[in-house]
């Protein structure tokens, strides 16, 4: 028995050989397993976004088995007593059922919502990492644009998703979205009617949003994500400077097994955090908001966080609109269409704009430290300041209530901050970059140990050098030489 087993190759090897006889994949797979990935904590941000997306797909698929995208009127008779006997749409009722009647439904729904919140947050932080380290420079401009497209799609899908339950809060959000579409010059009225299927509230919007949310946008994101990863794979990852790291090499750990293990581990930990949030932190409790009716709205209506900057922009934009030749360009066009249009266009074009400013058209694989590029860092800080101010402006009503200040004073404060604060933070960032670059700060020194001497004085002695310091980082070697 043992001899028989020993004489034949192990089962895995036989499967591998059978496959290779048909696909001749050995060379490609081997080079893939040997591929080197640079290690840095900030390179995990994009992975967190990707793994949140995987969680979104898994939990979202589960939810589609129970959600009914219909505006048909039904009367609730389920276990949640406060809503018993209330008229509502099937979309709202099925979401209530997922929350209270489907076993494991509530935790799935909340993990899904949290995953969306984290997904867009992780993309944003990932974009900041890529921006401030200059990872978008040649040859990675295309992947930057693919990434910006995914950010836009993620925001659109987040909005579509939380609009599906047809609760009072999201219905108000849809009403605002409809008004913004109406305001677009020339095509606005027709677009709103074609998208919503008629004047608001039209009966087809939830079923259409459902198709957008579960099929069209996810398919686009999957396609773009595949392209994003394939381009990254082909171009190889950027890396920070350090011992043995040059423009012509990649230093890090091999895909198989070290990087694969760490990445699978990161997926599990991301999913674990989302599961903990989904179980313990209530999110979007639509049973409190109640079903949507066009004539009602609750006070303190705020959208999900990633829509906050647009809501804030709607609030601080002055009450002007353009009327010419018997036509109107509505007020909401400027903060609701023009602002995001300009935002994402400038974001997508940044690599080309920067190359033009700096005249630097060379390929780069080594990353910048933000301090070494004061202009770019200052621009990024100014932009972030602007959008954070707009985001905070989405809470003007809440701030007015809590701080006992008049709404007028708060709106004017935010108008001033939106225009005045970005130049100030940009100047501060620029200054800090210059001073940090000139000083030795940030080059990590081993900590000093303060020792009291026998005669009562104090003496500072440097401790043993840190293992991670570049000074004692081992010299990188080719993979094959280490066996």
């Amino acid at each position, binding site marked *: 028995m043992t001899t028989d087993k020993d004489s034949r190759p192990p089962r895995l090897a036989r499967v591998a050989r059978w496959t290779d006889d048909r696909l001749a994949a050995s060379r490609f797979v081997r080079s893939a397993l040997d591929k080197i990935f640079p290690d840095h904590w900030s390179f995990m941000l994009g992975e967190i976004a990707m793994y949140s997306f995987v969680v979104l797909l898994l939990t979202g698929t589960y939810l589609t088995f129970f959600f009914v995208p219909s505006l048909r009127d039904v009367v609730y008779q389920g276990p949640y007593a406060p809503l018993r006997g209330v008229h509502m749409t099937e979309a709202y009722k099925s979401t209530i059922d997922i929350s209270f009647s489907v076993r494991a439904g509530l935790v799935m729904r909340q993990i899904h919502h949290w995953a969306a919140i984290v997904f867009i947050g992780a993309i944003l932080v990932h974009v900041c990492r890529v921006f401030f380290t200059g990872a978008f420079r040649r040859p990675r401009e295309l992947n930057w644009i693919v990434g910006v497209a995914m950010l836009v799609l993620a925001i659109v899908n987040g909005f579509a998703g939380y609009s599906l339950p047809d609760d009072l809060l999201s219905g108000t959000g849809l009403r605002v979205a409809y*008004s913004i579409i109406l305001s677009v010059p020339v*095509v606005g009225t027709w677009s709103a009617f074609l998208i919503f299927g008629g*004047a608001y509230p039209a009966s087809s919007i939830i079923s259409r949003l459902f198709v957008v949310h579960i099929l069209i946008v996810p398919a686009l994101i999957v396609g773009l994500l595949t392209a994003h990863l394939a381009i990254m794979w082909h171009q190889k990852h950027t890396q920070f400077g350090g011992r043995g790291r040059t423009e012509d090499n990649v230093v890090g*750990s091999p895909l198989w097994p070290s990087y694969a293990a760490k990445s699978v581990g990161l997926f599990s930990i991301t999913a674990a955090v989302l599961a903990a949030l989904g179980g313990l932190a209530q999110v979007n409790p639509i049973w409190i908001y109640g079903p949507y009716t066009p004539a009602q709205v609750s006070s303190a209506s705020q959208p999900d966080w990633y829509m906050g900057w647009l809501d804030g922009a709607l609030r601080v934009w002055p009450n002007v609109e353009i009327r010419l030749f018997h036509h*109107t360009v509505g007020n909401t066009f400027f903060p609701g269409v023009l602002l995001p249009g300009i935002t994402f266009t400038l974001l997508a074009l940044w690599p080309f704009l920067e190359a033009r400013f700096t005249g630097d058209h060379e390929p780069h694989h080594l990353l910048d430290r933000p301090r070494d590029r004061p202009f770019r860092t200052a621009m990024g800080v100014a932009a972030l300041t602007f959008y954070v101010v707009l985001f905070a402006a989405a809470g003007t009503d809440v701030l007015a209530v809590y701080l006992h200040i008049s709404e007028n004073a708060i*709106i004017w404060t935010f108008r001033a901050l939106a225009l005045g604060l970005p130049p100030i933070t940009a100047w501060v960032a620029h200054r800090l970059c210059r001073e940090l670059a000139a000083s030795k700060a940030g080059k990590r020194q081993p900590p000093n140990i303060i020792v009291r001497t026998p005669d009562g004085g104090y003496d500072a002695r440097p401790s043993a050098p840190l293992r991670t310091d570049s000074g004692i980082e081992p010299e990188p*070697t080719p993979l094959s030489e280490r066996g």
Partner: protein
Amino acid sequence: MTEPQPGRRPEQLIALGFIVAIVAALALAGVYLSGGQAQAEGVLLALALGGLGFGITAWGKYLMPQGPYIQAREELTSTPEERRAFGAAFERGEAAFGRRALLRRLLAGAAGALGLALVFPIRSLGPNPGRSLVATSWRRGSRMVDLDGKLLRADTLEVGGVATVFPEGHTDAADSQVLLIRASDAPIVTRPGRETWSPRGNLAYSKICTHAGCPVGLYQQQTQQLLCPCHQSLFDVLRGAKPVFGPAPRSLPQLPIAVDDSGYLVAQGDFTEPVGPSFWNRR
């Protein structure tokens, strides 16, 4: 009594992570089978995934080859020969297409015509806006009803009271929602020409904000102002709901109302201007 071998401790920790994952996963199945409980499910799933993630990550970090390893980065641009070869290959087709200009133009025409024809089905997605944005369901003599369908009289509301009202038989017409405010006991002239619009101090305004279409629901009697809770536009009730603060660019349209022979509040006609937010072909 020797010190533990280097490498024993990570192994123990990794094993602990996997054991936590096994226990939590089994407990998760148990919670589901015994009826389910959202918080417990979330925590146990987090523990199962967290134990797994911790174990695999630590395995990768402490017990697998770390390097650092080095790999050459190949030039990303193609060589001049490759580019020339590509150019030659492409020219093969370019020549074949380029030579027959008539066929090429007809091909472009066919593709364009097909593309154009395929645009038309988009039209089926929605109706022609027509006059739907400029007219509501209010007619001359439409009686006012509240959300429950009850008719209103001029004294149904106390002074300072408000109600959301619709034209009778159209309580589902979202564009016809009106906020009825009993601002006073005597008629109020909010604008010249609106002398007869407010029987016994009842004012009727479109409830749809002229900014982004939210229902303008908050009435402050002391200041006689209406507040939109979405973006905080403020309207002056006594001056024709003129916007006094916030992003709303226009007044809320006022509905001319009267009292009919039976004492019920009725509309004198439809709004004299479109309700709700602006749109392109709004004059």
